[in-house]
């Protein structure tokens, strides 16, 4: 489903100096798989997630990414979404003045339009969104609020998962969706993700801690350090990291 080859990317810092962040990522994700990407702060995990979604600040300098054999980097962010890619933001943006329900409906119908499907009417949409909100334990009052405005950290993350449930992506990327969550919110997020798991759909779960992986069991775990994947393994790798930290892996990689 997703094939990433030798991906290099950089960003211009405030002094217009080019800073290399990703230095040759190779990753193959098959339909139905959940891959976790772990790593210390500043290792490039979030950059990786954002580059796949199409954030403009980063430049891809080398390598390729194919989603269902389409060149991701040739698509605009909205086209990537229509192709089935979804990024759950680490820091969801507050957008005052834009009603949450209006936003969700615009997103759902825009993707349907790009896929040449008829738009959902108001009634069908409302029924659908209410069902999905129950799955993430979100109060219906959040529909009439502005997008993420004044939401708590946990409410913002639930709102991300709600969007994911509504858009039903082919590939969902969760960028540190677990950060700052209490156990209840963590479970709600995991429940949302697990309800979407099926043989056609894949996930990339970017996280610092193995805690989330107790609820969302990954098929593969990758460790990213300084813009490279230095070790890959099964779910037991996450437990090992929880116990020993990242230091031993960095040494092992240098050896």
């Amino acid at each position, binding site marked *: 489903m997703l094939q990433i080859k030798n991906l290099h990317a950089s960003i211009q810092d405030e002094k217009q100096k080019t800073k290399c962040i990703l230095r040759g990522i190779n990753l193959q994700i098959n339909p139905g798989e959940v891959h976790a990407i772990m790593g210390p702060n500043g290792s490039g995990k979030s950059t990786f997630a954002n580059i796949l*979604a*199409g*954030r*403009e600040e980063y430049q891809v300098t080398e390598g390729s990414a194919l989603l269902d054999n389409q060149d991701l980097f040739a698509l*605009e*962010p*909205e086209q*990537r*979404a*229509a192709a089935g890619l*979804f*990024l759950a*933001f680490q820091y*969801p*943006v507050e*957008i*005052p*003045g*834009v009603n949450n329900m*209006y*936003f969700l409906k*615009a*997103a759902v119908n*825009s*993707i349907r339009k*790009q896929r040449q499907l008829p738009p959902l009417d108001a009634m069908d949409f409302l029924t659908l969104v209410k069902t999905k909100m129950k799955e993430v334990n979100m109060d219906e009052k959040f529909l009439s609020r*502005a*997008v993420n405005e004044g939401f708590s950290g946990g409410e913002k993350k639930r709102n991300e998962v709600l*969007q994911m449930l509504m*858009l039903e992506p082919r590939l969902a990327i969760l960028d540190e969706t677990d950060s700052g969550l209490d156990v209840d919110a963590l479970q709600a997020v995991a429940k949302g993700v697990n309800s979407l798991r099926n043989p056609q759909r894949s996930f990339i779960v970017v996280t610092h801690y193995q805690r989330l992986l107790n609820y969302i069991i990954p098929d593969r775990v990758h460790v990213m350090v300084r813009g490279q994947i230095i070790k890959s393994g099964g779910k037991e790798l996450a437990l090992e990291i929880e116990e020993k930290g990242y230091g031993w892996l960095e040494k092992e990689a240098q050896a």
Partner: protein
Amino acid sequence: MSGITASQTNLEMCFTQNPHFPRKKWLNDFRLQQFKQFLHAGFPARKDELWKYTEIKENLIPEKMGILCEPLYSEKFSAATAISNIVFVFINGHFAEKLSNTQALPPQVTLCMISQALETHEDKIKPYLLREFDVKRFPFAKLNAGMMTNGMFLEIPKNITVTTPIHLLFINTKQHEFMTNPRNIIIAGQHSNVTIIEDHFAENAQHYFTNAVTDIHAAENARVNYYKIQDDHLSATHIANVLVEQKQDSCVKTVFLSKGARLEREDLSIWQQERGAETDMHGLYVLRHDQQHVDHHVHVDHLAANGTSSMLYKGILEKKSHAVFNGKVYVHPATKQINAHQANHNLLLSTEAEVNSKPELEIYAEDVKCTHGATIGQLDNESLFYLLSRGIEKNEAHKILTRAFAEEIYNKIEDTVIRQYMQKRMSDHD
């Protein structure tokens, strides 16, 4: 200014077309005197700080006044006359009785044309009409005093609440290159409550020149909501002074929406004359066309203690349009406990659009709390990426964020029917 210019000749020609009020020598004399004072002072020059960014070229003055005619019964016209049961219509500056309707008005309230009030309420209206405007600060109000032909006179006695909004409609139609000088006088008595909509638009009229003055007097504890929409033809010139005097504990809320005209200059001036007054001023200018120029000057004089004022103006500019915002809060000596805020935010959707924003505070008293700020920028990239990443197409995402930016101002219009009407008018492309 020296010598006689073509525009002076035009002004003189307009002036002679003014109606003569029989048996009102005091008014005819006063008008002539004011008119001469304006001519003597001349048009404001750009070296004058108040006119730094806006030049009213003398050749904009047409050589004739507007004349009354049947309006075009367009969709816009029907929508406008449908929002309230109290509607007072002026066509090309003249009162159109047939189109007006004041039946829903409480019987204690006086609502009539100024020319009519001169007959029935002469003593009452006289001091308002004889108001002397400082020609330096209010040159066009001075001109209006000299040129004014007609307008609305509204008096709400004390303790009366007018529940139906009063819709004042200025339609410019079926005529080109003409001048109007409407003068409106609104007197809100103690503990009275009223909502007024001043609405300007065009149907098949071009290159006309509006020079309006609206005088608002809010007595003790009066509550006045004043909403104005300027939707003139893109070739028109719209100059207006809205002058507000507030007594103790009165509350005045204004919303100014600007969409049309090639050139608009809007002066909102507030005098909080007694303690405890409250003023809320909001504005939104949406300029979609090349060469459009809108200038909002908002001035608040805090002359008494315990006053509050808040000012929020927002602008959305496209193409080669130009906006000017100048907000001034003046806290006079011997006042105290003043709370004043002002802000101006602008969204530039093109690289050729231009904004000159100047929020000013002058404080000569202690124990006051004042803030001010201004921003000029583009759509927020983070918000834009968020919408795009959810599959929303670029055009639509821009529209959503632009609308969200404006929403804050529309939400200040409490009445849903009026809000929806004005929002639709502002978003209609024509």
